[in-house]
């Protein structure tokens, strides 16, 4: 049981590390947010689950579950607020961007979004 929890926690750490690499390598604020939020959410879920499985004797499973649910609920909200702030502050997209649906909606251009 200890080994299973350790393996799951290690996979979660790997996902958090990939999120860090994504933040370093991506060209744009929005791409960085995409990489840094999703990978980190999955990584923290796996890490906390692995610790709760591996150390089941401590009786902290309910607290860890509450922490996981809090992260799942609040992490998309905070990333959405940051993306909205970056968009309305006029941060430019990269040159490789194909489509910007929110700018089309604001300019009321008809298109397939």
């Amino acid at each position, binding site marked *: 049981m200890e080994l299973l929890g350790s393996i799951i926690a290690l996979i979660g750490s790997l996902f*958090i590390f990939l999120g*860090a690499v994504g933040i370093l390598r991506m060209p744009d*604020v929005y791409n960085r947010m995409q990489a840094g939020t999703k990978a*980190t959410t999955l990584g923290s879920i796996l890490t*906390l689950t692995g610790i709760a499985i591996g150390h089941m004797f401590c009786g902290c499973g309910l607290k860890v579950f509450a922490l996981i649910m809090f*992260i799942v609920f609040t992490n998309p909200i905070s990333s959405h607020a*940051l993306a*909205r*702030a970056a968009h309305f502050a006029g941060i430019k997209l990269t040159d490789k961007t194909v489509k910007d649906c929110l700018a089309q909606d604001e300019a009321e251009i008809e298109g397939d979004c």
Partner: protein
Amino acid sequence: MAAFLIFCKLDHKGHSQRNRAVAMDTMTIAGISFIVFLSAYLKRIIYVDVAIVYAIISFVGIVAIARYLERGL
């Protein structure tokens, strides 16, 4: 553990305010996992409560920073 250390080293590359805000968002989530690792390593259950309070404070701080960057105080 090594992944967290490398992450803290990588994460200080921010050029504008928004990049720093995104990096801080990710870094606090990694810090929560690090605190829970520490509580399992030292066998102190009370540190999980510290992680919960840290999560709440980081969420409120990120939302406040985002509102400030959007339209000012």
